[in-house]
């Protein structure tokens, strides 16, 4: 029986979208119950802040030029931890076969998991950002909404391509070691865009350049959401 939402969508699309939301909901509920991804990620983020606190030999204003880079590199490393798990558990319990049997376009698996990973990353970022600013003594001088937009765009492309490559790496030996090697070269434009955009918002770079970097992030996100959608089927063929 189609839900209220489905009435506004064409019949073929409503099935796919329902699968996406069902998978997303399942990921979120499983995580809420076990917290097996979020907990290590948050603790890792805390550890990173601590190590930086000791290792950088500078705080506050002295950190100005490097702080945006610190922030994003930390989030990407912490994020890789969570991304690695998203297909590893499916493989361990062999539930991927069940997902493949669903009569819908298989890209729903990718979209559902990518959205779930995006939510997890967002939670970790919301928790860690105050810690990064507070413990490292950097004042938050950025305009709030543009800063949030930057965080979302910088994370979205990462979540998308990271989920895709996690599906690839899950079926290899040494999956946890392979994933960073695969993701980081591909991620370089996003790193540049996210760090420069954040820097311009925090006053460490050219303040007028923000829109240009956001444009780069948007283009990157668009490409690396579209490509996985096209190619995901080939990855999960049994």
């Amino acid at each position: 029986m189609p839900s209220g939402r489905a009435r506004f969508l064409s019949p073929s699309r409503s099935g796919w979208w329902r699968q996406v939301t069902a998978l997303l909901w399942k990921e979120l509920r499983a995580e809420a119950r076990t917290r097996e991804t979020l907990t290590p990620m948050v603790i890792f983020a805390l550890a990173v802040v601590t190590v930086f606190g000791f290792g950088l030999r500078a705080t506050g204003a002295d950190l100005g030029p490097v702080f945006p880079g610190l922030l994003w590199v930390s989030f990407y490393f912490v994020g890789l931890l969570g991304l690695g798990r998203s297909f590893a558990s499916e493989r361990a319990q062999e539930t991927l076969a069940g997902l493949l049997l669903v009569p819908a376009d298989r890209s729903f698996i990718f979209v559902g998991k990518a959205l779930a990973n995006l939510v997890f990353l967002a939670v970790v970022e919301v928790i860690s950002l105050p810690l990064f600013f507070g413990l490292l003594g950097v004042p938050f001088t950025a305009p709030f909404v543009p800063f949030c937009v930057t965080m979302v765009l910088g994370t979205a492309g990462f979540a998308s391509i990271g989920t895709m490559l996690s599906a690839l790496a899950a079926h290899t030996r040494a999956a946890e070691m392979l994933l960073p090697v695969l993701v980081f070269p591909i991620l370089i434009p996003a790193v540049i865009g996210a760090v420069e955009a954040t820097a311009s918002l925090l006053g460490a770079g050219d303040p007028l350049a923000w829109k240009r970097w956001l444009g780069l992030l948007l283009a990157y996100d668009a490409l690396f959401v579209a490509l996985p959608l096209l190619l995901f089927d080939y990855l999960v063929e049994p």
Partner: protein
Amino acid sequence: MLAWVTFVAVLGALFLAFLYAPPDVKLGDTQRIFYFHVASAWTGLLAFTVVCVAGIAYLRTSAPSWDRLGLASTEVGLLFITMAVVTGSIWARFAWGTWWEWEPRLTSAFVLWLMYAATLLVRNLVEEPGRRARYAAVFGIIAFADVPIVFMSVRWWRSYHPVVVSAAGLDLEPPMVLAMVVAVLAFTLLYVLLTVERVRLARLEQELAEYKRAWRGEGGGIRA
């Protein structure tokens, strides 16, 4: 036949680059590495294009020959892009006084190297052959799509992080243009030669693996 043509072309390139072309006005003889740097960088990019095309073709047809081409082009391409990065670094040392410079082309070549290495890792770490071919194809496509974006973003990034040294402009006189064209041609031929040989080797490897599987499966049928 191809080997002989390549041999002549490479000899010609060496002659033109070292003896025929005049030394550069600003950099003198140290500029001569430029011919081989450009040639190897161009070939490295060409090889990666072939990897991407072979990947797309493999995903659509599932024909093993496309996978073999992808494998060969990845390995040979890694060789050429390594040469490009190393010669680029050497040239940077003499042209700009520094062993490395985060300028768009050199950086993009280095990123391309990383992507090649990652593609080879994917091939080495997947056991089942069909899956390996598919994964290598998918990653090759994704990585190739990223290359222009990497180049563009590094270029933008550079305009916001100006460095004291800038890319040395080269005034190319006609003899130098000839040397460069021949060098590029020679390296392209070398790439084709090496890739063709590697494809042939890959096919023989696969046939051998199949014989071994058959022999083991029949439990000594050929020996008895």
